[in-house]
């Protein structure tokens, strides 16, 4: 159901809800299209008329700075009209009220929803119930999925490392609460990375995480050996409902990425982080701002990847 919902009858990406069910060819098409848009940032005029006359609503039920801003900028650079709606809502008011919101916005002739919601499955729910001519892009749903973040990470990795096949990638930190990690693991496996490791304390790993196709480490020093790409995750304190950690300083001591720890990885390893970073909690300032960090490059690439996904979905709508 999930897979079919995302694709139109020609197999084109109509909604972008999850990496799950998308094949290597489609993920590569997203990366190649994003490459075209990335080139635009070298131009004096950074705006093209592709989506002129289209209306995009950024529907953010959960706070976001980077993601919302880059989605907005992506829409503007494609010449779409974009409206940002920041809707603070409680998790319990999901069902009918969410549907009502959607119906009302549809009545304003919207072409695309970009949705962030604290509840897993919210974007799917909207895609299932929205009018057939409307595309839905998932900008993060609960602990489930954040596909555009994963794709901009893949784009950044490909930009620097060229190929996925030889790469050993370590994802470090709060895997349990991370929709980003889940999407990254799916994307890396689909694109054929040699090895994916997750490095975290037992309390911050989901049960049966190894079934996702990853090797599990609980020791940072051990897990960083031979690594090409280091992905740090933010400690999601706002999602922690129970005492999963003794203290932040204890966490930093064991799992924080310091210059000394980074030396264990390959000398040309890159350091990534989806942001926002907690300096001194999961990552040392010297690493975050150091020469191996590509954190700001990830942000720039976010615009190109979101332009790619938006233009692909807008085009596939018509043939759905």
């Amino acid at each position: 159901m999930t897979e079919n919902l995302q694709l139109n009858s020609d197999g084109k990406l109509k909604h972008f809800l999850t990496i799950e069910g998308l094949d290597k060819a489609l993920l590569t098409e997203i990366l190649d299209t994003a490459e075209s848009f990335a080139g635009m940032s070298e131009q004096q005029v950074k705006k093209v008329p592709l989506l002129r006359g289209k209306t995009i609503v950024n529907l953010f039920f959960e706070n976001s700075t980077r993601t919302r801003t880059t989605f907005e900028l992506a829409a503007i650079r494609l010449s779409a009209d974009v409206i940002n709606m920041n809707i603070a809502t409680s998790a319990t008011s999901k069902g009918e009220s969410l549907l009502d919101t959607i119906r009302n916005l549809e009545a304003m002739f919207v072409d695309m929803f970009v949705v962030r919601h604290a509840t897993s499955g919210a974007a799917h729910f909207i895609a299932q119930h929205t009018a057939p001519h409307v595309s839905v892009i998932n900008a993060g749903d609960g602990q489930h999925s954040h596909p555009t973040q994963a794709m901009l990470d893949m784009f950044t990795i490909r930009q620097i490392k060229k190929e996925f096949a030889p790469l050993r990638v370590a994802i470090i930190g709060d895997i349990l609460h991370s929709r980003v990690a889940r999407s990254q693991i799916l994307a890396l496996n689909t694109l054929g990375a040699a090895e994916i490791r997750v490095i975290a304390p037992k309390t911050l790993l989901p049960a049966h995480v190894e079934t996702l196709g990853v090797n599990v480490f609980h020791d940072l020093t051990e897990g960083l050996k031979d690594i090409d790409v280091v992905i740090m995750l933010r400690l999601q304190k706002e999602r922690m409902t129970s005492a999963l950690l003794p203290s932040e300083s204890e966490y930093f001591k064991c799992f924080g990425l310091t210059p000394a720890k980074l030396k264990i990885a390959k000398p040309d390893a890159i350091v990534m982080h989806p942001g926002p970073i907690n300096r001194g909690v999961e990552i040392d300032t010297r690493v975050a701002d150091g020469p191996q960090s590509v954190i700001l490059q990830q942000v720039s690439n976010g615009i190109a990847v979101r332009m790619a996904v938006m233009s692909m979905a807008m085009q596939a709508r018509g043939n759905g």
Partner: protein
Amino acid sequence: MNNTPLQIPALLSTLENSLIETISERKLSNPLMIGIRTGGVWIAERLHQRLNFEEPLGLLDISFYRDDFSQIGVHPNVKPSQLPTTIEGRDIILIDDVFYTGRTIRAALNEIFDYGRPNQVVLAVLIERDGRQIPLKPDCYGARISLEANQRIKLTGPEPLSIYIQSMNEAA
């Protein structure tokens, strides 16, 4: 139809002469040459050399300005356009390989005008064929030919540059 009389050197010479005449007639001053990717750039590179232009060639990729986006979508691997810092007030020579419907030129003009307001734009193409769909036409051409609706002019390059006519059923 495959044994065509189209010869690149002859076409380029005719186009060059016509362009020299137009530059003088239209009083183009310090013109900027811009080629449209991909075939137009190949032609422009040759004319740029023949006419001894000093300023580097401008490169235009009109993929994002096409009017058939909703039908065919975005092509992956579009190259960025490279235009000089100032378009404002410039005299521009726009080069393409084949002029057919005119839609490519419409897209190219829109992109150029997004960068500024040129003083004049002159359009030079290697071949003008019939099938115009909008009110634009080239100022200079290497040859003007009539073809069946299912026929296309195909340019291959950049080295060697060659040209032939294919029927659509062959192309598939």
